[in-house]
């Protein structure tokens, strides 16, 4: 096997040195009765050319050349070429968690930069080194909020990403945490009457996503005030990190914990993963923060360096008392986001975000001219729009297929009430011509 250096002869030589005859002699620890007697039932080993053909055929079985307006937390943005050429370097790609700091300063400094960038984007004081994705980042944020607030009831907007809410429920069920859903108002933002009726002093945190699943921005200042009035926290989730390039930071609005998904920052859709979650908070909560943290320090000669720190929060030290069970995170993808933010920079991050707004507003004005299309949730939005078709979606789906357009996400699956509704995303990757193609088709439905 080309991945295994030691040839059969080489193996024999090693066995001889150990005074053994065959590899079998090394398996003595495995009781005979549980040894596998037959070979595994797997395909014959494939060579490189065969592997390329095999995976080429998988790729071929996926549709290509579709014009897609899918977003819903996995957003199509332009990804600078530099990112992949840097993360392809073996030094970043094939190194482990930086347990031995003196020979891992590259990863450590880069993630220290990631932590700083996440703080700048969210307007918070501390960031961890990454979470698996937006859904687990939100879940950990809520578990953290419960620890901090020492309470167990949450008010969560129903406009939080449905996939995230399922993950939250999967975890919280086992922590006797109670999560009450708050519906959304006609403009798309959280329903305040419902919220007020649910809010009281045993609420650990109000949990919203902004921009929310329908693309609308939540009134965070107001929410922060309400939460703080009954000594609850405001947890804000951002599933479209790029929005922070043009939308005021949750930190500046008074959020206590800000988490989310940074896939928008240079990470390919990749069928839903790997992406990269982030989790930031106020400094005073840092010892309740889950996940790895990189800290600055000095070496024995006083030179600046970086190390993993505050590990007493973590499982390898605290075991069952740890703030979370997370160990391996999404380091390489946090690096991708770091490179993306560095390339785009102060000017770029805002320009890209502004282009998303402009494209979305153009689409909005064109969509509003189509009688057969109703636009829901008129509130302020970043780059997504919910529309309702006058016809059942099933009846027209084939029309979109033949036009090689994926119009967006049918919402009924997640929101049974939202019949024939589509969630459409309009990013900087969509030209006016692209948008017009969609509009033309919608007109003919």
């Amino acid at each position: 096997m080309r991945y295994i250096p030691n040839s059969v002869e080489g193996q024999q030589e090693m066995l001889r040195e150990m005074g053994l005859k065959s590899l079998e002699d090394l398996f003595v620890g495995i009781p005979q009765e549980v040894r596998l007697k037959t070979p595994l039932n797997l395909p014959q080993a494939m060579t490189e050319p065969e592997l390329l053909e095999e995976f080429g055929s998988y790729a071929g079985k996926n549709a290509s050349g579709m014009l897609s307006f899918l977003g819903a937390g996995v957003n199509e943005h332009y990804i600078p070429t530099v990112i992949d050429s840097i993360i392809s370097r073996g030094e970043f790609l094939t190194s482990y968690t930086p347990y031995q700091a003196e020979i891992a300063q590259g990863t450590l400094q880069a993630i220290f930069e990631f932590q700083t960038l996440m703080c700048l984007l969210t307007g918070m004081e501390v960031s961890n080194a990454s979470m698996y994705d937006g859904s687990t980042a939100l879940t950990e944020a809520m578990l953290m909020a419960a620890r901090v607030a020492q309470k167990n009831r949450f008010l969560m907007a129903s406009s939080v990403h449905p996939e995230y809410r399922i993950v939250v429920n999967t975890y919280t069920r086992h922590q006797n945490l109670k999560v009450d859903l708050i519906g959304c108002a006609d403009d798309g933002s959280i329903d305040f009457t419902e919220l007020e009726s649910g809010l009281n002093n045993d609420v650990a945190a109000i949990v919203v996503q902004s921009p929310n699943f329908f693309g609308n921005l939540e009134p965070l200042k107001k929410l922060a005030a309400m939460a703080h009035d009954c000594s609850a926290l405001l947890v804000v989730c951002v599933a479209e990190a790029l929005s922070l390039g043009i939308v005021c930071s949750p930190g500046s609005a008074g959020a206590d914990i800000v988490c989310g998904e940074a896939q928008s920052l240079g990470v390919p859709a990749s069928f839903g993963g790997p992406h990269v979650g982030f989790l930031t908070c106020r400094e005073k909560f840092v010892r309740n923060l889950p996940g790895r943290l990189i800290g600055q320090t000095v070496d024995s000669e006083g030179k600046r360096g970086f190390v993993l720190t505050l590990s007493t929060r973590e499982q390898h030290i605290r075991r069952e008392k740890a703030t979370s069970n997370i160990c391996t995170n999404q380091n390489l993808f946090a690096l991708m986001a770091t490179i993306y933010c560095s390339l785009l920079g102060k000017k770029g991050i805002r320009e890209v975000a502004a282009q998303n707004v402009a494209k979305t507003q153009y689409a909005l004005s064109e969509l509003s001219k189509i009688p057969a299309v109703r636009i829901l949730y008129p509130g302020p939005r970043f780059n997504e729009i919910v529309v309702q078709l006058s016809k059942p979606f099933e009846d027209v789906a084939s029309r979109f297929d033949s036009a090689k357009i994926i119009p967006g996400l049918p919402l009924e699956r997640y929101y049974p009430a939202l019949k024939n509704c589509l969630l459409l995303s309009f990013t900087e990757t969509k030209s006016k011509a692209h948008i017009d193609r969609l509009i033309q088709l919608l007109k003919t439905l």
Partner: protein
Amino acid sequence: MTIHTSTPHINQNEELIFERSSPGRVGYDLPALDVREFDLESALGGENVRDFIEDFPEVSEMDVVRHFTRLSTWNFSIDAGMYPLGSCTMKYNPKINERVARLEGICNTHPLAPETLVQGNLEILKKLSDFLAEITGMDAVSLQPPAGASGELTGVMMIRACLTERGNPRKKVLIPDSAHGTNPASAVMAGYSVEALKSDAHGCVSLEGLEAAMNEDVAALMLTNPNTLGIFESHIAEITAIIHSRGGLVYMDGANLNALMGLTRPGDFGIDVMHMNLHKTMSTPHGGGGPGSGPVAVKKFLEPYLPSPTVEVNQQGKYFFNHDRSKSIGKVKAFYGNFGTAVRALCYILANGSAGLKEASSVAILNANYLKHKLRDFYDLPYDEPVLHEVVFSNKRQAKHNLSVMDIAKRLMDYGFHPPTVAFPLIVHGALMIEPTETESKEELDRFIAAMMSIAGEAETNPDLLRHAPHLTRVKRLDEVQAARRPVLRWKR
């Protein structure tokens, strides 16, 4: 230094990206906006419009390439040298994996695209699940958990769901004191309390201890096999019998699967549910700490509780996601797990085939035993048992000279090797946990052995050499105490 394995060489200094920043510099360009600028106030609402982000970097593309290229040269990596981190299975990460994972048609697919448009991806998920089931001898697999710890949590949640349906979720989970920290942490997140099992004199689960601890309050045993000492639990049959006979389930931490492929299967020795670390056994790159992939595999009776959706095939041979699974524990991650990592793992399994995977495990075991054989006269061997893919020594002999295991580890850097895992497992005081993997050659192993022997000698003759190591790295030993005492977790102007 007697052994000639590394030499210091000129290496670039580099400040933080923020310190490189200079006003007006850009590293990007964007196609000109082809629709009219829209008034941000009215689009976002006046109070929502954000100004430029203070302190965000301003650098050119060249600055970025140079910044991160320089940083990369400060890292040790598998591509550069032997990385025998115990329990981490740092094997060669084949370049072909990276290539296939980057195929346009695969890496740019949206998780919510209609299933008819992503049949290729579903086939990848299904194939990999089936292969992992075959390798582990289990009946069903979910690829959703994004890492090992998440796999553990998923597994324990399923145990809880199953027992709850049987009438009693029970209260606690038994975990050997040699287990990885994620085990107890995961058990607790699934709502159980944890009871630690003391390992016996052989580093294994003590049957007496287990007998004593096992009762109707115990939901499950979380067993790592081979355990973190690299030892296969020889009483595995009795162990699983004890648990099962009293209505408990057996969870296996499969992080050490690299010792078992083609040799024995957890499904055949009484395991009910387990996770694997594809970013260990299946050669997907660690990327400096992730992404990973921690699939869970279960026996038939637990299949209903697997996370949703599962990937299935209908009569017409079309693949589809089954979301309609009433007993499922739910979801532990949005969508379907770290798909990109799954692609690489599938490529690795296909490249190896049945014989290749068995050879991988066999040679991994050979290499570990070779190190054990060669180093046992120089380092204390707390548990002298037959080991499989890894071996754990301790610093007992060197401790006589007041040398910590960290001193030995840091000194290894000067010889051009990444140190083994240190201070784990916790049952060994001053543990040096060495896992060479099958992708190291005898020559590389011999160089490592020579370095370890040389260090053992230095410990006798010149302990300070170890105490102040590393000497050849661009930063000397870093002060972790200060880092924790006065945390500086971000750059500030």
